[in-house]
């Protein structure tokens, strides 16, 4: 049989991939109204909300990619199962992604790239996490003994496997935010970076307060009306405190960095709470958008991942974006001043501030970024304009989708309002466990 021959050059042309919309469920605090909802339940609800909003019932979407950071082993096909349970066509393919807190943004980036390459016409990116319904695992030693038992043939082998089990092996191991290699929690890692850059509690509380005020204002103005679908009685993010104040925040006791010889400045008020929630983003080509009567909001221009060696003390755990963003902007011939919006995921208020401090540092610019001086300053009025994770909460893998849908709508609004052809751009930056970071540039359509 003759081999099929390619009919065209193997180098595909690259076209634009657009964000066409988004939908999420309000984010809940752990142990709140979503306490019995599974990751699959919440992801399905977020997809179905998107389907309803954009009239996609029975539609065969090119591909759906989503993920969860805290994932049960039974959820090996979480996204496909959510699609099968949704109103989308059962012929919609799906795959799971897991890149810690960058999961949601990575699904947007990888699906956009497939659209840009012409492999897909449409896609849904997403993410979900439940800290209320987190997987509990048996201890390694019990697991090994049970696996040995399942392989044992003779009674003697079975008894030998069972005999290895000690009472303490029966204690379950719950997931935690500890880094596997350092055994420090994410908060403790950030506390080290916070102390290194000398960030005060007052500065962190100001970031937290701004996040609550901006998110509350966005809800009040109806900005989220076509981005959020109520779920289990929640209509707004449960963590949102519209009436917060610097006085209230200042009274909270430090939660991280207590073992350091510098003042502990990180509190529950300026750190994200454990949260439950799910988000989705609808992506597509211009042709697909036209065929479905949808208006492109923004295009994904480029993305850059980074990683730091926090294990050996070179940089703080959550500082990878401080390196990835300068590379990303340089590749695109842009500076911070060329960006109209800057979205930095608020894992902790201090994460935002240490990133900004690093960019403003002459020494960091020279020695760590290889620049001639400081990378630059961020105009605070461009930063997290509709609030971010400190107010909304942070269901790990759902955060990327929340940011992308929010900022894409804002980009489109600003472009339409300006009435000019001048590009309107946003930078999105998400830090993640393992010293990872993922950053992207979007441009208003």
């Amino acid at each position, binding site marked *: 049989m003759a081999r099929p021959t390619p009919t065209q050059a193997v180098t595909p042309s690259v076209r634009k991939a657009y964000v066409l919309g988004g939908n999420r469920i309000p984010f809940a605090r752990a142990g709140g109204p979503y306490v019995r909802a599974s990751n699959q339940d919440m992801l399905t609800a977020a997809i179905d909300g998107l389907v309803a909003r954009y009239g996609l019932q029975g539609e065969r979407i090119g591909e759906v990619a989503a993920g969860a950071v805290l994932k049960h082993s039974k959820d090996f096909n979480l996204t496909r199962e959510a699609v099968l349970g949704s109103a989308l066509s059962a012929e919609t393919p799906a795959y799971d992604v897991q890149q810690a807190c960058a999961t949601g943004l990575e699904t947007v980036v990888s699906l956009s790239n497939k659209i840009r390459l012409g492999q897909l016409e449409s896609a849904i990116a997403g993410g979900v996490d439940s800290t209320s319904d987190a997987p509990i695992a048996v201890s390694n030693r019990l697991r090994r003994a049970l696996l040995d038992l399942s392989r044992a043939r003779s009674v003697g082998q079975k008894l030998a496997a069972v005999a290895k089990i000690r009472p303490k092996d029966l204690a379950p191991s719950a997931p935690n935010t500890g*880094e596997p*290699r*350092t*055994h*420090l929690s994410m908060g403790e890692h950030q506390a*080290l970076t916070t102390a*290194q850059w000398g960030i005060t509690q007052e500065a962190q509380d100001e970031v937290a307060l701004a996040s609550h005020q901006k998110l509350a204002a966005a809800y009040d103005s109806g900005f989220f009306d076509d981005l959020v679908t109520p779920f289990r009685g929640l209509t707004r993010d449960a963590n949102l405190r519209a009436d917060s104040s610097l006085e209230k925040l200042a009274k909270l006791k430090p939660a991280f960095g207590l*073992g350091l*010889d510098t003042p502990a400045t990180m509190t529950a008020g300026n750190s994200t709470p454990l949260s439950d929630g799910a988000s989705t983003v609808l992506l597509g080509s211009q042709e697909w958008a036209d065929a479905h009567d949808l208006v492109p909001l923004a295009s994904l221009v480029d993305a850059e991942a980074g990683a730091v*060696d*926090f*294990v*050996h*003390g*070179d940089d703080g755990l959550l500082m990878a974006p401080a390196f990835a963003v300068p590379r990303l902007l340089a590749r695109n011939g842009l500076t911070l001043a060329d960006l109209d919006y800057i979205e930095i995921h608020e894992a902790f208020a201090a994460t935002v501030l240490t990133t900004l401090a690093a960019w403003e540092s002459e020494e960091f610019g020279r020695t760590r970024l290889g620049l001639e001086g400081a990378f630059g300053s961020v105009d605070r009025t461009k930063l997290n304009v509709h609030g971010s994770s400190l107010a909304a909460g942070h269901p790990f893998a759902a955060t990327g989708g929340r940011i992308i849908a929010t900022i894409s709508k804002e980009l489109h609004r600003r472009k339409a309002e300006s009435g000019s052809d001048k590009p309107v751009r946003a930078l999105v930056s998400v830090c993640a466990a393992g010293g990872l970071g993922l950053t992207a540039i979007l441009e208003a359509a």
Partner: protein
Amino acid sequence: MTTTVVLPSVPALGGLFARGAGLSLQRRVRSGPTTLPDVEYVVRGVRADASHLTAYQHLLGESASDRLPAGFVHVLAFPVATALMVRSDFPLALVGLVHVANRVTQLRPVLLSDVLDVRASAADLRPHRSGTQVDLVTEVSVDGTLAWRGVSTYLARGVFLAGSVDETSDPFVPPTPTGRWKLAGDTGRRYAAVSGDRNPIHLTALTAKAFGFPRAIAHGMYTASRALADVGAARGDAFDWSVEFVKPVLLPGTVTVRIAHDGDAFAFAGWDARSGKPHLTGSVTPLS
């Protein structure tokens, strides 16, 4: 002339400890020799066992590769040196010896498939401000080429043989931590299971109390090997790995650690965050 004693296999540490304990009792009755015996112990054809290696690697946080971690080579080879230490003409009693420092030079990778020749000798019996120190030198060769060399320094407290010392050490200032080891109560028993070192001071609070410790203490080589594992693959194929054991780690316990780049090398330290007192300090230096 050096006498070479060839043993048929690596001896079990349990039997050596029993013999050492017996000799230690004799020492209380009459004083022993004051010089090192001019002898070396040799075991040829030593092979590592894959499941033993995996258990060690998983416990210490090493990747389960076919390369033997430098600390695992120590586990395989050091009983040969212990055999020398329980000779009746060895000047220091095994019971009560404190492992105060260890230095390993890994010259080339040692693989699971390699057949190892182990040679052990004692060297440099010398005075210390609180007693007498001696080095146990263990060398591991593959096909006649030296691949690994370990120098384990032991201190006999309160045993003064000769000479005077003038030693001062810099006070320890806790650096910025990079991590933390949470050591469970069974850490000593688990390392004993992979190392064969079932010295009672490491096993239970009760057996440790018999030797003057309030609780069981972690094996020094466990902590040093954790630090080496934390350095990771950046140590390369050939490196120097040296450690000083300053203060025992009581079990269960938490050790705050810094394992960080120090020029082209890595410096590591483990300390008690509450007291600021060090447990161990050391370095891993890649050999170019």
